[in-house]
C-alpha cells in the first residue's frame, strides 16, 4: 500500500482520535462526548499504535511518522495515567497503611531510635552533672533563650520573653514550618549513604538531651517537662520515623542486594515515602498540641496525665492499628 492510500484510508480515524483525546483531557464532568464514545478510546488507541508501527515498518515519510508518533505519545500518557480516589486512600493510609509501614521498617526504626536516644541520654546526663558541658554544643545566646523560655517566672511556657506575646496560632505555623521541614530533611539526606540522616538524628539527640539535662539542673522541672512531655510523643516519634525512612534510602545505596542501585533506590523510596508522609501528619498533630496545649499554664499533674495518654495512644497506634486484615507478620 502506498503512503497516500494509507493516509486517505485512516486520516479520518486519526482526526477522530485527536478529538477524543482533547475531550478526555477535560475533567470528567465537563466532557462533551457521551460515555459510549469515550469508552472507545482504548480500542482506537491500539489501532493508532498499529498504524504507527506500520508506517514505521513500511518506511513512510518522516513527517507522517512524526505526526503519528505525537498522537501515540498523547494517547499513551492518557491511557496509563493514575487519578482519583485520594480521599479514600488518605483515610486508608492513616487507619492502617502508615502503622503497617512503620512495622515493616522496625529494624530501621530501631537503628534510628538508637542514634537519637543514646546520644540524648548521654548528653542529658552529662549536662545534668556538669554545668558547662552544654556550651560545647549550643552557643550562649541560644542557651540563654532556652533558660528564658522555661523560667518559672515566664507567662507563656516554651517561648522566650520576646516571643511570649506571640499568639498560639503564630507558633502553630512556626512549628509546622520548622519541624516538618526538619523531618523532610532527615529523610532526604539519607540518600547520601545514610550519613546525613544519622548526623541529623545524632545532632538533634545531643541538643535535645543536653538542653533537657541543663534545664533540669537549673531546677526548671515544673516548667520544662510538663511542656515537652505532651507533644514529644508525636514529635520525637515522628522524627525517628523520618530517620528510619532516610536509612532506607541509605541502605539502597550502600547495600542494594540483588538489584541495581537505581532499582533498589526506587523500591526503598516508595516504601520510605509512606513513612515520611505519615511522620509529616504526626508532626502536624505535634505542632497543634505544642502550640495550643503544651503552652497552657495548667497544673503539671494534669499535663503529665495527658502526656501519658498521648504516649500510650501513639505506641498503641503504631503497634496495633491495621493488624486485622491478614497482615504478614
Amino acid at each position, binding site marked *: 500500500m*502506498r*503512503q*497516500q492510500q494509507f493516509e486517505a484510508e485512516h486520516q479520518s480515524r486519526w482526526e477522530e482520535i485527536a478529538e477524543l483525546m482533547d475531550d478526555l483531557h477535560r475533567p470528567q464532568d465537563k466532557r462533551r462526548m457521551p460515555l459510549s464514545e469515550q469508552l472507545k478510546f482504548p480500542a482506537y*488507541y*491500539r489501532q493508532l*499504535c*498499529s498504524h*504507527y*508501527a506500520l508506517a*514505521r515498518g513500511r*518506511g*513512510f*515519510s*518522516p*513527517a*507522517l511518522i*512524526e*505526526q503519528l*508518533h*505525537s498522537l*501515540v*505519545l498523547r494517547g*499513551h*500518557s492518557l491511557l*496509563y*495515567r*493514575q487519578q482519583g480516589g*485520594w480521599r479514600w486512600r488518605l483515610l486508608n493510609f492513616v487507619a492502617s497503611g502508615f502503622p503497617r509501614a512503620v512495622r515493616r521498617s522496625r529494624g530501621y526504626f530501631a537503628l534510628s531510635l538508637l542514634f537519637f536516644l543514646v546520644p540524648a541520654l548521654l548528653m542529658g546526663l552529662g549536662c545534668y552533672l556538669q554545668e558547662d558541658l552544654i556550651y560545647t554544643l549550643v552557643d550562649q545566646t541560644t542557651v540563654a533563650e532556652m533558660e528564658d523560655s522555661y523560667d518559672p517566672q515566664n507567662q507563656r511556657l516554651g517561648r522566650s520573653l520576646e516571643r511570649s506575646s*506571640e*499568639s*498560639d*496560632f*503564630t*507558633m*502553630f*505555623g*512556626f512549628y*509546622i*514550618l520548622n519541624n*516538618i*521541614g526538619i523531618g*523532610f*530533611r532527615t*529523610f*532526604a*539526606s*539519607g*540518600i*547520601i549513604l545514610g550519613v*546525613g540522616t544519622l548526623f541529623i538524628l545524632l545532632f538533634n539527640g545531643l541538643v535535645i538531651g543536653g538542653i533537657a539535662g541543663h534545664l533540669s539542673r537549673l531546677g526548671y522541672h515544673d516548667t520544662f517537662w510538663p511542656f515537652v512531655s505532651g507533644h514529644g510523643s508525636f514529635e520525637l516519634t515522628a522524627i525517628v520515623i523520618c530517620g528510619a525512612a532516610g536509612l532506607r*534510602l541509605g541502605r539502597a545505596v550502600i547495600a542494594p542486594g540483588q538489584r541495581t542501585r*537505581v532499582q533498589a*533506590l*526506587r523500591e*526503598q*523510596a*516508595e516504601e520510605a*515515602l509512606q513513612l*515520611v*508522609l505519615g511522620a509529616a501528619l504526626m508532626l502536624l498533630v505535634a505542632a497543634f498540641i505544642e502550640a495550643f496545649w503544651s503552652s497552657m499554664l495548667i497544673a503539671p499533674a494534669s499535663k503529665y496525665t495527658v502526656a501519658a495518654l498521648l504516649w500510650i495512644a501513639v505506641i498503641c497506634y503504631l503497634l496495633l492499628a491495621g493488624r486485622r486484615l491478614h497482615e504478614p507478620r
Partner: protein
Amino acid sequence: MLAETPQGDAVAQLDTLLSYEIPEGVLLDYRLAGPVVRACAWAIDAALRGVIYLVLVLLMALLGGVGMAVIFIGIFLVEWFYPVVFEISSGATPGKRAMGILVIQDNGTPVSPSASVIRNLLRAADFLPMLYATGLLTMLINREFKRLGDLAAGTLVVYRDQQLTRELPPQASASKPPVDLTESEQLTLLTFAERGEKLSQDRRHELAELLAEMTGLKGDAAVNRLYAYANWILKGR
C-alpha cells in the same frame, strides 16, 4: 528496560533521545532535557516563588498572629510542595512550562503523585552542599540526566512535543525515478521534499544538484524533479 534507539549506537551516543517500548509494542522517543534548560526553569520558578512569598507577607502581615501563622504555613507549603502541585496537575511547574519541558515517569506515563513527592522532597539532598551541586553531578554521570530525586522516584524530565504543523510536499507531477531506489534512498527523497521549503533557496539548490548526474538539471528545475520523484514514491503512478 530501556531499548536502544532504533537508529543504533552511533546516534544514541550523540543524541539525547531515549526510546521506550510501550505495551502496544511500538517504540516511543523522548528528548531528554539537560541541566541548562532545567536550571533556567528552576530560576523562573525561584523568581515566581519569591513573588508569592512577597505577596503572602504583604497581605498577611496586616492580620497579626493568625496572619503570621498563615505566612509560616504558606512558606512551608511553597517550599516543599510548590512543584508537586503543578507536576501532578499538568506535569510541569510554570518555569518548566515556559522552557517547554515536563516531568514524566520512566515509562512515559504522567508523573504519579507519589513519584512527584519523592523527587521534590529529595531536592533537599540534591541541593547539597549548595545550588544543586549534588544534583548537577548526578545528572552528568547518568545517561538520562537524572538528579538524585529523579533516580529515586523513577522520573524523567523531557521536552514537551511542540504541536506539529505537517508540511505537505509541494505539489508537482509525479515521475518515476530513472533507477531503482533502496528504501533509505526513497526516505531521503521524501525527507527532502517535506523539508525542502524550509531551507534557503541556495541550500535547496545545492542539495538537489548533488543528484545532477542522475537528473541532468540545475537550480529550481533539479529541485522540482526531486519533488516529482518524491511524489511518485508517495502516490505511485
